[in-house]
């Protein structure tokens, strides 16, 4: 009975933050800086290892194979992906502006920067879908094709997650008072995640298209 | 008092060391040694047994002693000594294991290179070998005297090779191709027509195996040789051993390969050279038209390399010899040589491609 008491007392705060329980019940901990950014960074480090594993597999396949890409594989078009890369990399700078703006509590600017990032990210995804549709090989055509689709597809999935985050935060920002007064973890998280997706893409692009 | 302590401790340590050394020579844990590699292995194993037994006795003895000596007596609610650390002691028990494992590492490395012959040290040289190595030629059915001249003269004069002579040259390794499939082993003796499901090798001669798998991973294991090698589809792996004890030993699949993994086993027979030669002859005679051999060959047929029969037919046609060769072809030693050349060529391509 008493256990549920705590829950009902904290329901309101829980909606705002994961840390509500601590903030509410343990005053001496509330002076801790927001740990969620730290947590997110640790998580992304781990997530990065997932890509590392896939990259390592790709590089090994490539090193072991007698010819790479295997003979008969059509050459990858690099122009579109290059444009895509430019768009994605610049979007990282755009979302960084949102990060700046929120620190000045300028929620209007944040919305615009988020919208711009969202559009750029969506363009990237659209470009990727376009590329998929015009490639001459399918998922199972060859080992090269499989690694290509799985790596870019998996990254594409992360872009999608990033876009969803940005969209959610953008919508949330219309709630009065949201993200103001230093409570801008949501904005920061979306932006950090977006940078992560970006960095992964740069490695991926160099590996798949350039190397 | 102090000297008495030292004597006691020294006595305990000497006892432990003596017991470990005795046990390392008398543990009886390993099966019969049937290959030269097993001798090397057992020496290393015994050395390790001595070390681990000593540590085992030391630790367990210490634990039992402490449990008796330092047990809490009824009514004693005091604490022990506030002993937080002892720098010298900690250095000692860091240094001794470090030295021990380094020694184990070096000794293991040494045994490993001896077991693998000189392969490890000369590995970078592998690509500079002449396309047909002497070892492979040694498997050809030809007199031992012929083989001696071969290393400098890789081109074989097919006219001079008398047919039906199946004498093994014991100075060069015997090469056998091993193909693993669920749930059987198939052994091909290059240079002969022999394809069997049981392996026969002469005692005292080095054997080189080229292992491959048809479907999933398997592992070739002969406990009496202390050797094991995974067979992996698409990759040729190698293994060498020199059997030194007559007898029949099990060949066991040691990598999970499916439901009947436990039943995937056969035997290797180590014979005297004379016995082995007569076995070779016997097998060669049946091999040419036994349905079993044909079945094995069918199994071994791989889309990437033609079957022997197809190859032979093609070769024969190219050479404008008799048109209906397939039935007689195995009697003609000259074609056999070509056949063998083909096989050698395919080993070499597969070997170089995996390197």
């Amino acid at each position: 009975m008493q256990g549920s008491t705590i829950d009902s007392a904290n329901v309101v705060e829980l909606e705002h933050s994961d840390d509500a329980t601590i903030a509410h019940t343990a005053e001496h901990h509330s002076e801790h800086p927001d740990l969620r950014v730290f947590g997110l960074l640790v998580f992304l480090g781990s997530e990065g290892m997932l890509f590392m594993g896939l990259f390592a597999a790709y590089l090994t396949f490539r090193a072991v194979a007698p010819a790479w890409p295997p003979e008969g594989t059509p050459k990858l078009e690099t122009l579109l992906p290059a444009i895509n890369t430019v768009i994605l990399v610049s979007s990282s700078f755009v979302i960084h502006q949102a990060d700046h703006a929120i620190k000045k509590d300028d929620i209007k600017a944040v919305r615009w920067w988020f919208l711009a990032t969202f559009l750029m990210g969506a363009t990237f995804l659209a470009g990727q879908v376009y590329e998929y549709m015009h490639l001459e090989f399918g998922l199972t055509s060859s080992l090269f094709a499989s690694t290509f689709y799985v790596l870019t597809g998996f990254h594409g999935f992360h872009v999608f997650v990033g876009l969803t985050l940005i969209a959610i935060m953008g919508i949330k920002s219309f709630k009065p008072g949201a993200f103001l007064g230093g409570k801008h973890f949501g904005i920061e998280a979306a932006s950090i995640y977006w940078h992560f997706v970006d960095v992964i893409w740069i490695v991926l692009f160099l590996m798949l298209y350039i190397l | 008092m102090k000297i008495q302590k030292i004597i006691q401790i020294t006595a305990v340590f000497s006892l432990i060391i003596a017991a470990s050394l005795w046990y390392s020579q008398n543990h009886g844990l390993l099966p019969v040694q049937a290959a030269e590699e097993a001798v090397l292995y057992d020496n290393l194993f015994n050395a390790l047994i001595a070390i681990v037994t000593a540590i085992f006795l030391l630790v367990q003895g210490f634990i039992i002693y402490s449990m008796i000596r330092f047990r809490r007596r009824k009514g004693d609610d005091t604490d022990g000594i506030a002993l937080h650390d002892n720098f010298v002691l900690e250095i000692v028990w860091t240094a001794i294991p470090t030295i021990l494992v380094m020694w184990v590492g070096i000794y293991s490395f040494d045994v490993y290179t001896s077991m693998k012959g000189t392969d490890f040290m000369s590995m970078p040289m592998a690509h500079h070998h002449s396309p047909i190595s002497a070892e492979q030629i040694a498997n050809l059915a030809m007199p031992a005297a012929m083989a001696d001249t071969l290393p400098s003269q890789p081109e074989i004069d097919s006219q001079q090779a008398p047919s039906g002579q199946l004498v093994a040259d014991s100075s060069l390794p015997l090469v056998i191709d091993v193909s693993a499939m669920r749930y059987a082993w198939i052994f091909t003796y290059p240079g002969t027509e022999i394809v069997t499901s049981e392996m026969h090798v002469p005692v005292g001669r080095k054997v080189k195996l080229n292992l491959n798998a048809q479907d999933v991973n398997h592992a070739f294991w002969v406990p009496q040789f202390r050797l094991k090698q995974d067979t992996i589809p698409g990759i040729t792996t190698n293994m060498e051993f020199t059997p030194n004890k007559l007898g029949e030993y099990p060949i066991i699949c040691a990598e999970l390969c499916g439901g009947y993994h436990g039943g995937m086993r056969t035997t290797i027979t180590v014979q005297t050279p004379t016995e082995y030669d007569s076995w070779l002859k016997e097998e060669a005679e049946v091999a040419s038209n036994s349905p079993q051999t044909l079945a094995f060959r069918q199994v071994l047929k791989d889309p990437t390399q033609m079957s022997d029969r197809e190859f032979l037919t093609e070769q024969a046609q190219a050479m404008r010899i008799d048109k209906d060769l397939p039935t007689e072809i195995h009697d003609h030693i000259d074609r056999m040589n070509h056949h063998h050349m083909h096989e050698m060529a395919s080993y070499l391509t597969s070997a170089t491609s995996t390197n």
Partner: protein
Amino acid sequence: MTQVIERISATQPPEPSSDTTHWREYFSFSTDHKVIGIQYLVTTFGFYLLGGLMASVIRAELATPDTDLVSSDLYNGLFTVHATVMIFLWIVPAVTGGFGNYLVPLMIGARDMAFPKLNAVAFWIIPPAGALLLSSFFFGAPSTGWTAYPPLSILTDQHVGQAIWIFSIILLGTSSILAAVNFVVTIFSMRMPGMDFFSMPLFCWAILSASGLVLIATPVLAGAMILLGFDLLAGTNFFNPTGGGDPVVYQHLFWFYSHPAVYVMILPVFGIISEILPVHSRKPIFGYKAIAFSSVFICILGLVVWAHHMFTSGTPDWLRIFFMIATLLVAVPTGIKVFSWLATLWGGKLRLESPLLFAIGFVSMFVVGGLSGVMLGSVPVDIHLHDTYFIVAHFHYVLFGGSVFGIYAGFYHWFPKMVGRMLNEFWGKVHFVLTFVGFNLCFLPMHLLGLQGMPRRVAQYDPQFANINVICSIGAFILAISTFPFLFNAAWSWFYGPKAVDNPWNALTLEWTTSSPPHPHNWIGEPVLATGPYDYGVPMDEFEEESMFTGTID
């Protein structure tokens, strides 16, 4: 009822009103780290019993050389699921999620974990993932071993079971990553004022190291699972040589996780032992810093030894030598820990009750597993012993003799704190003796089996091994029986055991400074850091030089 609660919470702050945790909390999406810890422990113990049941069937099958009890395919399914359950649903979640969640905040003087909700999410992934895995028995259980080596795992007849296996591994991996994020952030940022890293209990060091390994290695396993899943379900050929793939790449990815996984399973248990030995020996832990750093060192080395599982896979020689040296080096920090524990016992006042018995049992059994591990680290020795019963013996000495003994020790030690009641000591000793005897009877002879030529993962074997296998099976059944005294002891004591005082063992770590069971917010006031975690013992200068080290033999 609800109205009452609302009124209470509206009129007064929750802290003074609630000093116990309602039982329904344990069946809810609770964010209290103590509730989650117990949820983990109870759930995983349930999985342990199921895994043990499978082990019993396996041992019953192996009591005779022929395949006569279950079909070969079912047999393969049993040992595959047995291993998966024991690793991913028992030891890993029990030692990190279970003990880690319960103890870390209490030990560092925090009110909860850094992310309570995330913590609950991490836990609640486990029951459905476990149920999913077990459901595979209805579709043909995955039967390619917990290693799931391709091409076998791609060409398997149990397609659905294999896919379920892959999916549940990904889920369980996600859960353990989320838990690890929480531990790292909690230990780094939520220690109470005045507690630096070197006054933290060693268990926290162990959890920190294990979490580091989880964060670095588990995602790589997820990568391998994704690629394997594509091979299995979408027809790609990453690991299938007929389509140009490379099965050995899978082995590298798999062992990059699965070797560190061993340390994920054993490091927190090292931590548990480092807590229990000083308390029940009434002595400070010997060599605090050496133990703390050796955890970190094991964590680092643990990441570069994975290919020692592949010495027979045709890996290049230089790679084998490198991994051999790295593997052998793991013995050094591990040895430091073992020797430090032994030195902790020396000169103590050993309270030989169930917690210490299991802890000493741990040291004793783990040493056997460690020594056979050193032997296996040597490439030539491993070539003969790889994939034999020697390996089975080795890792059961590490994971059962090691981890499970340590978990039991932890149960006995912290049960009074968690439940507020004491366990029955007599049945605790019965449990220990049965477990110890059964365990050694079951696994010691397996060393001989492997050396003599019995491969692992076989349903039928050479009749010459029949007698030894019968001994192993008898040991396994004793082991199965040994869980009953514990189960009844724990269940009975939970409700009817004598009430425990706050600090029944007279221990110094912070979790013993609160009530038993702890207040939902851990401490009613602020926790007080009065001493270091291991400041036991009579000061050295009060002891005579003579009795200090050598002891007096009367």
